[in-house]
């Protein structure tokens, strides 16, 4: 089974020192001080793809839209067991909404043989959660979002578990080829070995610019988007909120006091 897995590089928000500042354009954030990592859900998608490959054979192609610096997340996916990669890189791709993003990803698949395409279900930076579904639509194949478990029934069908509220698992059969938007927590993403990392440096990352995608300028970026982001803003501090100051021991004490006072505990 040949699998395509789409990965996005996002700022590392697990770092408590990460501060987000809106940049001069008002439509972006200052990226200077960020460290970047693979999007959380995509990490699980990569692991699921490699587990399926290990069980059923085939090849895993990693697809990314990003600058050269995104090679680090691509190479890590290759180090864990991906076979080859495509990186879509052109300044015209900036400000693509989920639909334009999906169109770009679809263009990268035109020369790739695949049975299954996986994305993460949600990106931790822009939080659209729509790319996988838009991609399925453009490819004309079925999809399942928030997929947590994936089982191969036969070479035409998968059994996919979708996690619902309260941990309920909804089981679906879905025809191949299809797109799965993978939820976090369904597997345990592995750590790449040194040998895997060494191998990854020998694997090809094909770079595609606008011309290579075969798309026109008005199909990508802001021009190709149905939703246009106009501005970021920082929410104003409301009157009703009380910000507790002090070290954790102090603030916890104050919080406990307030909860008691209001009869909430």
């Amino acid at each position: 089974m040949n699998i395509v897995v789409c990965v996005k590089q996002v700022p590392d928000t697990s770092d408590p020192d990460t501060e987000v500042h809106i940049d001069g354009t008002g439509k972006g954030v200052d990226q200077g001080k960020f460290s970047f990592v693979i999007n959380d859900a995509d990490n699980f998608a990569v692991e699921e793809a490699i587990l399926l490959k290990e069980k059923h054979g085939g090849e895993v192609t990693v697809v990314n839209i990003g600058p050269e610096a995104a090679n680090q997340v691509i190479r890590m996916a290759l180090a864990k067991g991906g076979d080859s990669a495509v990186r879509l890189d052109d300044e015209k791709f900036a400000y693509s909404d989920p639909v334009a993003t999906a169109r770009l990803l679809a263009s990268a698949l035109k020369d790739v043989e695949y049975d299954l395409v996986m994305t993460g279900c949600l990106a931790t930076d822009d939080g659209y959660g729509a790319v996988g579904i838009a991609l399925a639509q453009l490819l004309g194949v079925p999809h399942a979002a928030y997929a947590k478990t994936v089982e191969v029934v036969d070479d035409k069908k998968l059994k996919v578990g979708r996690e619902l509220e309260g941990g309920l698992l909804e089981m679906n059969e879905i025809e191949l080829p299809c797109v799965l938007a993978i939820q976090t927590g369904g597997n345990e993403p592995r750590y790449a070995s040194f040998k895997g990392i060494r191998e990854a440096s020998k694997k090809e990352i094909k770079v595609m610019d606008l011309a290579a995608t075969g798309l026109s300028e008005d199909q990508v970026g802001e021009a190709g988007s149905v939703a246009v982001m106009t501005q970021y803003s920082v929410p104003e501090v409301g009157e009703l909120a009380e910000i507790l100051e002090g070290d954790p021991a102090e603030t916890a004490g104050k919080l406990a006091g307030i909860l008691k006072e209001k009869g909430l505990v």
Partner: protein
Amino acid sequence: MDYDLTEEQRMFQQMVREFADNEVAPVTDELDEKGEFPYELQAKMAEMGLFGLPIPEEYGGSGAGLVTYALAVEEISRASASLGITMAAHTSLGCLPIFFFGSEEQKQEWLVPMATGEKLGAFGLTEPEAGSDAGATKTAAELKNGQWVINGTKCFITNSGTDITSVITITAVTGKIGGKKEISNIVVPAGTPGFTVSPPYRKMGWHSSDTHELSFSDCRVPESNLLGGRGDGFKQFLKVLDCGRIGVAALSVGMAQACLDESVKYAKSRVQFGQPIGRNQGISFKCADMLVEVELSRNATIKAAWLADQKRDYSREASIAKLFASEAAMRAASSAVQIHGGYGYVEDYPVCRIFRDSKILEIGEGTSEVQRIVLSRGLGL
């Protein structure tokens, strides 16, 4: 001149850092308290190649250089010094003697399963009466009917008593040449009759690293367990210790870095006299000094490792790195506890454990005094 790591080194460093943060750090205190050997973590690390980094792939290792190895030891030790020494002692003291001096057959039999991390190896040099003066070895091995008959005691041997320990290479007196002791290295498989592993020591630190006294009483191993040439033992362990010093230096860097991280965090959040204690130069300067020493220690360590990777002489640099980094780590641990005040003296904060874990850095693989002896001899003194 180029101070940058390669992409491969950076990626592996990042991967080991993630592993250390996500898998090691959360269980370090529990392992330390129980004094348990972390078999599960060891197995996961083995899968990443962490138990045979500098050993070539054909012998089960990863074929990485010592720079990569030093970076990895640093990251693991930042989260757990015990795990750092488990990995470092296995690699340098366990694997390297067999890799450097073993025959093809010995490598296939013993090195391959150790370099994959399936088994652990140890090196027994120190004896009750031969510590810094390692040449004073008393353990004797006498060749009788094609077998070495070993008698003696080794002490403080790391990784020598785990469930997955496969062999211990020991130094032993195998005869006399011209009135001088002939010292050779002999490989003793775990479980050989006559070879007894004592219960673990009750150590100040490194609680989840495995350390035992070993005794040999008419313990017999085949003549073919001799490593390299008869009488080459002294030369061989000096070479092994050079690499071991890079490991201890890297371990020290990781621990000093952990002290710095914890201290800065604490100095920012602990409020006394109405402001974070880090606003006082008495505290912030300690952190600045730590930063300087971490950086210098790391540079010295990586330089020694780099020289080794270039196949150049690195013995002096390894000694410099080990001496400076281990003493810097001890100073950092002491400052870190001071910055934490009373909270640094209780086990609720990691600096308490790091303080206990640090002292041995100035003792193992050649004490600070021994490093100074070696370095001053190099100066012709």
